């Protein structure tokens, strides 16, 4: 319905005029014109009053639910799901770090273990003669007075044994009669304490005056567990 005398017609009033006080995007001029229209148009004035009543009811409805709060159980559920979502990632990261850490630690321990074992092995062989039983036997083989090919007792060996004890500080092994040099590559050196008389069991001659003395002997044991050579320690 056009008023004719007014800039704003009823249709425009229904669209923009009803909420002219709230519509921030509306110009002051439009606001003035809508107010002017409501003053002169009875129908639009009644519509405005009706809308004002409806707005009051909506405001009451809004007010009645303004204090509504989301129940605490929702927060609990949301946070629980948040944790479920993010904790595995943190745990995964922790597990990855822990795995790498353990692997690195294991590697270090292995490295030191092997190194230490080698050192121990060298220490048990070296310092006295050579680094390995084979090298020890090489020294034995090179001894000018040893006969490695015969099984018969070597008569001078007792002298060598006893002489070695003094002259070489007990550094030389004496191959036992009947032993084989090939079997000692993976053998071991075992230090034992025995009566000197027990050397006779290895086929070595023993000075009877000292037969009851206790001596320390390094025994070179072959891979088959049999003694291949001996060395006096004292």
């Amino acid at each position: 319905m056009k008023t004719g005398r007014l800039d704003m017609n009823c249709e425009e009033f229904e669209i923009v005029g009803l909420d002219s006080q709230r519509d921030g995007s509306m110009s002051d001029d439009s606001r003035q014109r809508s107010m002017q229209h409501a003053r002169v148009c009875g129908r639009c004035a009644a519509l405005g009053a009706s809308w004002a009543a409806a707005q009051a009811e909506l405001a009451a409805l809004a007010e009645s639910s303004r204090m509504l709060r989301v129940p605490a159980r929702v927060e609990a559920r949301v946070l629980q799901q948040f944790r479920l979502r993010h904790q595995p990632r943190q745990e995964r990261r922790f597990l990855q770090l822990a795995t790498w850490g353990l692997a690195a630690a294991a590697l270090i321990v292995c490295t030191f273990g092997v190194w230490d074992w080698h050192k121990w092995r060298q220490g048990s062989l070296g310092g006295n003669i050579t680094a390995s039983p084979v090298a020890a036997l090489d020294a034995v083989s090179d001894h000018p007075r040893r006969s490695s090919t015969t099984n018969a007792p070597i008569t001078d060996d007792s002298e060598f044994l006893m002489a070695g004890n003094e002259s070489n500080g007990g550094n030389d092994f004496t191959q036992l009669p009947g032993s084989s040099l090939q079997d000692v590559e993976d053998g071991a050196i075992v230090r034992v304490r025995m009566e000197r008389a027990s050397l006779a069991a290895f086929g070595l001659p023993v000075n009877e005056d000292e037969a009851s003395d206790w001596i320390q002997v390094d025994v070179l044991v072959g891979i088959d567990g049999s003694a291949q050579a001996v060395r006096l320690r004292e």
Partner: protein
Amino acid sequence: MKIRQNDQDEELLKRSAKGDEEAFTILYRRHADVLYRFAFRMTGSSWGAEEIVQDVFMTLAREPGKYDAERGTLPAFLFGITRNKIMKYNERLPREISLVERQEDGSGGGLTLRDSFTPAMWAEQRERLEKVRAAVMELPIEFRETVVLCELEEMSYDQAARVLECPIGTIRSRLHRGRALLLAKLEMLRDAPRRWSSVAR
């Protein structure tokens, strides 16, 4: 780094994305209530509103990268997600809208009158509010969300336009038609003659 209550939403969201629960909790507490009220007013169901709010924040936790600060504020983004969830909720449960929402204890939910009326006045006003709420709930969804945002949430047209991602003219137009429908329904409730016959068809 310590979190302050007044930290910006964007900062809190970044930290939440990295699994910072405290930051996420602050974000939740900052925005959950208003989203819950919006969802409740749109669905008329407290259970539905709870489900929607939960879904909204799980979406935020799952896909924080979807929020683009250049496109708008985080509240507007959250309103947008809420709106989508409400649409889905309404598609799922389109036919049943109870006039009185029941709480867990069996009492009516949502509408609380704080004034000390006489029991008769209280009952009358409560009934009236329920009818207004029912009238709002019966609006088509696009008009309802505009009415809820502008009239109940008291957003400006500009804010509503950003939430609904539409021009301000669309808001004005939807509000106009929503009002017309709402007035017609309220007039019917009052048994008063309809004054808005031209638009409320």
